[in-house]
């Protein structure tokens, strides 16, 4: 069972929910993997403090042109949709950062002048955080595209009953890649106008992908009625409400798991896990 934790807006508490959920589930005897797919700014390791057992570079393919074989036919530049390879007169220019590694240029090159080479675009780390299996990716700085690395993080997921995917914020490509094969998407929001606006965008995204979803309202305080009302109108289940508590923010600021520091948060996370079981087929998996 794969559960993706996502949100439109950043900073609503995705990592808090994802790490605490993984920890609580593991403490309750499940086999759990936590995958940090926010490869641009991964933070899960600050809370789970894994021991990294393997760290390897991740490469990205880009074309290399053998000038000897090149006939300057220009087909490579024609098929490339990203202006990553351009044939100008007698010269072929390659822009590796723009390349999406679709392989089109290699396929159209009749004289076989183009091969694909790897360049490092990030790092994949695998480890163990107490009872939680841990995987995260670190995108190389300056790298524009992250989906390939997110794909690698997911490929590296160990076999477990429960996989928690910590997604990046937003609603575009990196988020799609993170949640696309999840069995259930949990959207974390906060009851502010920004939070609600971005929740709506995230709901639209998950619905476009035809995945089941539920909501967690984080930092719930005096007025979360609009968010609750929106969810009710949309027929979306609110699986948990986490109160706005300065102690949670302070625990977060120190890199401490709120479930470890505050028994009442642990209870809420256990309830959230139980409700996730109800909302998904997780309970059919061995507990």
């Amino acid at each position: 069972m794969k559960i993706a934790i996502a949100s439109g807006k950043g900073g609503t508490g995705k990592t808090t929910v994802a790490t605490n959920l993984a920890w609580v589930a593991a403490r309750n005897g499940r086999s759990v993997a936590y995958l940090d797919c926010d490869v641009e700014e991964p933070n899960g390791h600050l809370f789970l403090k894994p021991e990294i057992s393997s760290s390897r570079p991740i490469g990205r393919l880009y074309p290399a042109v053998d000038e000897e074989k090149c006939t300057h036919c220009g087909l490579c530049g024609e098929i490339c949709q990203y202006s990553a390879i351009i044939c100008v007169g007698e010269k072929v220019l390659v822009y590796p950062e723009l390349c999406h590694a679709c392989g089109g240029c290699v396929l159209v090159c009749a004289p076989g002048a183009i091969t694909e080479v790897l360049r490092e675009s990030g790092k994949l780390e695998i480890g163990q955080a107490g009872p939680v299996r841990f995987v995260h990716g670190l995108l190389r700085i300056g790298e524009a595209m992250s989906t390939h690395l997110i794909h690698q993080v997911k490929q590296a997921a160990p076999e477990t009953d429960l996989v928690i995917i910590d997604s990046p914020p937003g609603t575009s490509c990196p988020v799609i890649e993170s949640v696309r094969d999840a069995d259930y998407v949990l959207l974390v929001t906060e009851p502010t106008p920004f939070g609600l606006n971005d929740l709506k965008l995230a709901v639209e995204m998950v619905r476009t992908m035809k995945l089941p979803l539920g909501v967690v309202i984080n930092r719930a305080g005096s007025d979360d009625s609009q968010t609750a009302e929106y969810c009710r109108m949309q027929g979306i289940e609110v699986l948990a409400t986490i109160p706005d508590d300065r102690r949670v923010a302070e625990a977060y600021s120190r890199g401490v798991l709120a479930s470890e520091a505050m028994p009442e948060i642990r209870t809420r996370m256990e309830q959230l896990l139980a409700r996730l079981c109800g909302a998904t087929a997780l309970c059919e998996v061995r507990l």
Partner: protein
Amino acid sequence: MSDLVGILSAGRKPVKELAVISGKGGTGKTSIVASFAALSHSSVLADCDVDAADLHLVLDPRILRRNEFMGGNRARIKSGHCTACGKCEELCRFDAIFFDGPGNGIVEKTFRVDPVICEGCGVCAWFCAEDAIDFGPVVNGEWFLSETRCGPMVHAKLGIAEENSGKLVSTVRTSAKRIAEERQLDLVIIDGSPGIGCPVIASVTGATLVLVVTEPTLSGLHDLERVAELTRHFGIPTLVCVNKWDINPEVCERIEARAREEGLGLAGRVRYDHAVTEAQIRGKAVIEYAQDGCAADVRAVWSVVEARLNGSACPAGEEL
């Protein structure tokens, strides 16, 4: 020609661009940008957080012009022509092709492109022997030219689950800069997105100054380090502001020390204040809603940023 350009640009300062980013999401970028918009009297706003834009919720723009954004192409298999040879599926590197399309007179099942996953590379269409794949431009967003109480604003909405946010960011920035030139406004304030990937790179490259809004948490510190490396990579002068600093004064100090080590300037601290959310609920910038508390802090940060943009020494005496 060059003389003419010289004459036209004489006496007119070039437009500056301030990009506000954060690395980590939810640190308060947009709230700070909204206040900057209200404090600056001659700027154009560019909301470059195109996949989760929020600035419009505070600035309540009146849209003057809507524009379609065509950021790329997409493939679509014409099920009537597909012979189910499977070449497209074999060549697609993005696993965007599925064997579950409707049947036709030739085969029981055809291939189908998932539009959400399609990367728009066109390889499938190029190599389809039956010419059964359409490949053409799609509208994957909209962008707007608007007027707000704080000046002109350019903003956008990336279509749900769409690609090419970097291109849309560039479109928004270019338009904002053009408007600034036309109206002789000297600053574009860019509200960036979280992360360090393509929309962020598109938001910061070539900017005059970057302000990183961070928070005093270990995540904030970790993400600041990565975002600082990014602005250094692109050679952009960078200031750091710690928002909600009193949540953890000790981590705040660590962040400021780290910023100094990295050669970044400090723009000041903004305290944690419920007025931020209260202002947001009322559709106001916090400096329009309150005078003291964090509103005073934001004003102080703005004066540091403004001084830096104007090239003068920072009034707080921080090394920049």
